[in-house]
Structure formats: structure tokens, C-alpha cells
């Protein structure tokens, strides 16, 4: 049994070590020169996010002024940004989409877009998050892919986090109760 426990612990260690956060941004070749940035201003100060950075720290409230650009103007283009939760199984993709654009002809030959977005109020109740956001932009002239690690500064003892803590304790107790011996007649 000791050998079995050691094997399980070893497998767990391998899983944890190989899944350490890998921070990176635009994946080469970024042939059409995609770039994005945002400035979030809120109660906790000002947070700068750039697609060349390793890690994006996002506060739980504020107003985000964002900007996206490409050095090569693309036509008939489209793109999407999603949270990579590892829930892609072949053709089935359960990763939640954050936003998408296109398909657009881009008849005006635009090479940049910008806007301001308020962080929704419900975000204040979310727990701290460390997730990978991925995205792509693709047109007739080329494609770019990128990803960034997002460190969301949530509440460790907010309503959602407390629910997770409670569920962890409850399931741990259930797991312990499964290990209790019972008589088999």
C-alpha cells in the first residue's frame, strides 16, 4: 500500500510541477503585428496592461480604456478572446468566450480599435483568479495568436470564495468518511 500511495503522490507532484503558470504573450510569428493594451483606473489605483507584458494584474473594480492594433491591415477578418480553462476535448470546446469580433470586411482599412469598458459590479464578489486568457485575430493577410496570464485581485473571503472553502471542507470530510471501514456480511 505504501508503494501505491507513493505512486499517487508522485503523479500529483508531476501534475503540479508541469502545470506551473507559463507567462507569455504574442506567439511568433506575429506576422500582422497584433498589439493590445489597456489602462484600468479604479479605487485601487491605475493598472497598465500590455500584450508584451508577462502578467496582467486586474483590479476588482474600475474603468478600462483599451486599445488594439495591427501593423498589417487585414480584411475579411475575425477574432475571439476566451478563458483557457483546459476544457477543450477534441471538437468539444467548453472554454468560456469573453468576446469576439467579425467577420468584418474592413472596407475602411482600419488598423486599430479602442474603447472604454466598465468592470461589471458583480466582479467585486469574485475570488482571486489566476487564469490564462487566449485570443486570435485572423484575416486574409494573416493571423496572430496570443495569450496572457491574468491575476485577478479578488476577495479571498468574499461570498464565492467562502462557498469554495466550504465545499472543499465538506468534500474532504466525505472523502474521509469513505475511508471508514464497514462490515460486509
Amino acid at each position, binding site marked *: 500500500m505504501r508503494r501505491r500511495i507513493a505512486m499517487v503522490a508522485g503523479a500529483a507532484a508531476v501534475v503540479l510541477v508541469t502545470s506551473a503558470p507559463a507567462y507569455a504573450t504574442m506567439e511568433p510569428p506575429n506576422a500582422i503585428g497584433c498589439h493590445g493594451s489597456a489602462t484600468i483606473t479604479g479605487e485601487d489605483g491605475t493598472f497598465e496592461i500590455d500584450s508584451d507584458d508577462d502578467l496582467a494584474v486586474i483590479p476588482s473594480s474600475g474603468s478600462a480604456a483599451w486599445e488594439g492594433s495591427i501593423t498589417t491591415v487585414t480584411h475579411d477578418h475575425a477574432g475571439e478572446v476566451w478563458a483557457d480553462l483546459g476544457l477543450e476535448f477534441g471538437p468539444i470546446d467548453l472554454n468560456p468566450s469573453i468576446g469576439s469580433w467579425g467577420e468584418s470586411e474592413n472596407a475602411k482599412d482600419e488598423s486599430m480599435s479602442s474603447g472604454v469598458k466598465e468592470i461589471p459590479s458583480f466582479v467585486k464578489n469574485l475570488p*482571486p483568479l489566476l487564469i490564462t486568457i487566449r485570443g486570435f485575430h485572423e484575416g486574409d493577410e494573416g493571423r496572430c495568436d496570443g495569450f496572457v496570464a491574468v491575476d485577478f485581485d479578488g476577495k479571498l473571503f468574499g461570498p464565492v470564495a467562502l462557498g469554495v472553502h466550504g465545499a472543499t471542507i465538506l468534500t474532504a470530510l466525505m*472523502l474521509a468518511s469513505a475511508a*471508514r471501514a464497514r462490515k460486509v456480511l
Partner: protein
Amino acid sequence: MRGHPVRGAIAGLFFGLFLGLELMMFKVLTLGRTSTVFLPLLFMVLGIVIGLWAPLGRRRTAAAPLPPPPAPPPPAAPPADGG
């Protein structure tokens, strides 16, 4: 004697999922395939194993009583008088 492997599988699956969320909230892991798929599966298997093993609440069984000594042999029949 054995435990509850089915309960262990279900509890392990959800414990792995919530443990993954805890590790993510404490910034140990990025929420991804490890925390949403691998950890739950790992703890589901672990739950089945400890459910079958059932290490908790076992009573130390007393030593089995010694078998009773063999019955003494029946007394030998008296020799018959030979004519």
C-alpha cells in the same frame, strides 16, 4: 471489512475540483486543465483506493481461539476370553 468506494469516487472527484479552485485562489496554479480535469480524476482514483482499503475505524481483531484438544481415544475393548 471494506469502506465506501463509490462515495470515495464521488467525494474525490469534487474534492479534486474544489482543491484545484483553492490552489488557483491562492495563486499556486493557473486555472486550467490541471485543476479542472487532472486533479479531480486523480482524487477520484484516490477516493476509490481509500474506499476499498478503508483504513479508518478498523477494529483490531482478537486472536482466533485455539481449537479444542482432540478427544481422547476410546478405551480399548477388553480382550475376549478365548475358549
